[in-house]
């Protein structure tokens, strides 16, 4: 039996640092885009106009009904066949953002629907338009109310970002694999990668808790 030897990790610190950086960039961008994408999608699903509602409902159905892995394959390997070449990182961010936009949209939709009609009426009676009412009054409250559920999505996104390694984004999981291929020490490298994922997750949760606490104060 070969014993465990964690000291090999020391010479791969730079590889892990780079991997963690890419995971960070990937997640930060995807979380941001998935909120920015989720809000209009939620509003579209709540729209009275079928022409707005139907296409978005269809998109939701497609992105929720198929595996993220397949979507990533499609974006990275499939799209070039129709002339659209995207870099691995762009493909990764696009895939994660689209996939989680759909999940965020569902959460935000519930948040918007839960806001009392009195809030709409008070805002409209002041002379705000529908869009201004959404932007200033409804969406901020909806986001506060669904912050815990959105947080769950962000944490899931962070973990699923490991899938992006299969389209050659040099993020944390791929960095670990690189180390393993050179040292044949999967236990040490996967454990180290796991610890870094956990650390990033811890930071993310800490940030989310603070946002939630701030939101609770103004409720």
């Amino acid at each position, binding site marked *: 039996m070969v014993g465990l030897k964690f000291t090999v990790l020391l010479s791969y610190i730079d590889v892990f640092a780079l991997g963690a950086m890419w995971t960070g960039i990937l997640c930060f961008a995807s979380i941001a885009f998935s909120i920015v994408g989720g809000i209009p999608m939620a509003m579209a699903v709540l729209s009275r106009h079928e022409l707005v509602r139907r296409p978005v409902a269809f998109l939701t159905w497609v992105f929720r009904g198929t595996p993220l892995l397949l979507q990533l394959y499609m974006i990275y390997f499939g799209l070039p066949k129709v002339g659209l070449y995207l870099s691995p990182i762009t493909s990764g961010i696009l895939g994660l953002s689209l996939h989680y936009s759909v999940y965020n949209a569902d959460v935000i939709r519930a948040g918007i629907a839960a806001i009392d009609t009195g809030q709409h009426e*008070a*805002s409209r*009676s002041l*002379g*705000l338009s529908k869009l201004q009412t959404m932007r200033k009054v409804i969406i901020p409250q909806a986001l506060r109310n669904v912050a815990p559920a959105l947080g769950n999505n962000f944490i899931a996104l962070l973990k699923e970002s490991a899938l992006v390694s299969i389209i050659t984004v040099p993020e944390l999981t791929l960095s670990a694999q690189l180390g393993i291929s050179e040292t044949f020490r999967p236990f040490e490298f996967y454990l180290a990668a796991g610890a870094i994922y956990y650390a990033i997750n811890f930071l993310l949760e800490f940030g989310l808790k603070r946002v939630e606490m701030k939101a609770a*104060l103004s*409720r």
Partner: protein
Amino acid sequence: MVKVVNVHKRFGTVEVLKGISMEVPRGKIFVIIGPSGSGKSTLLRSINHLETVDQGEVWVDGILVNIPLKGRKFEKHINKVRQEMGMVFQHFNLFPHMNVMENIIMAPMLLKKMPRKSAERLANNLLNKIDLHDKAYYYPVQLSGGQKQRVAIARALAMEPKVMLFDEVTSALDPELVGEVNKAMKQLAEEHMTMIIVTHEMRFAAEVADRVIFMADGIIVEEGLPQEIFQNPTQERTKRFLAEVFK
């Protein structure tokens, strides 16, 4: 200032307004009383177009509110008209994610492009008037019902409306908090604000009203000076209602 001409409104098969007409001159205070379900709130909401009337006309300051426009054009029109009307609701409807100051300055800054400094000055003046200058940076959740409602009045006043509509603004308050909200409305009355008030507070109605309208079953049963309505009602329905209220 506010003119309602033969307004009809139905919800499904129920006709809640059956041809209402009234005219509120500038600077006058009209109080609408009546049993619940009589249509008084619906009438008030129709003036602000929170309810779409099925038939008839609503005029505010010479502008037809329910102008027959569609889509974006109507949206633009109604947003403009609503800026001239302040409305205060039974359940306050303050924006819970904004503090008192932000609640008040949001609309003037956004819609009138008022600079923050001027908006804050305006808000502080209003807060002084309603004795809440020390609560400017409190969130609604930290206020009592009476304080919330006074902030809601200040929020509506910040748009410098020509008319104020009050929809049962003291109905959700503990009895001991009603007085402070009524006081704020009386202050407005002294400044000759045009007001339409829907209320269950008969004593308050008698005190501030220039005219009292008694509504029942979707029609105006009787309209007159407060002393006429409260002391010598001519209609049987009015007498029955008042007897019930003052029992």
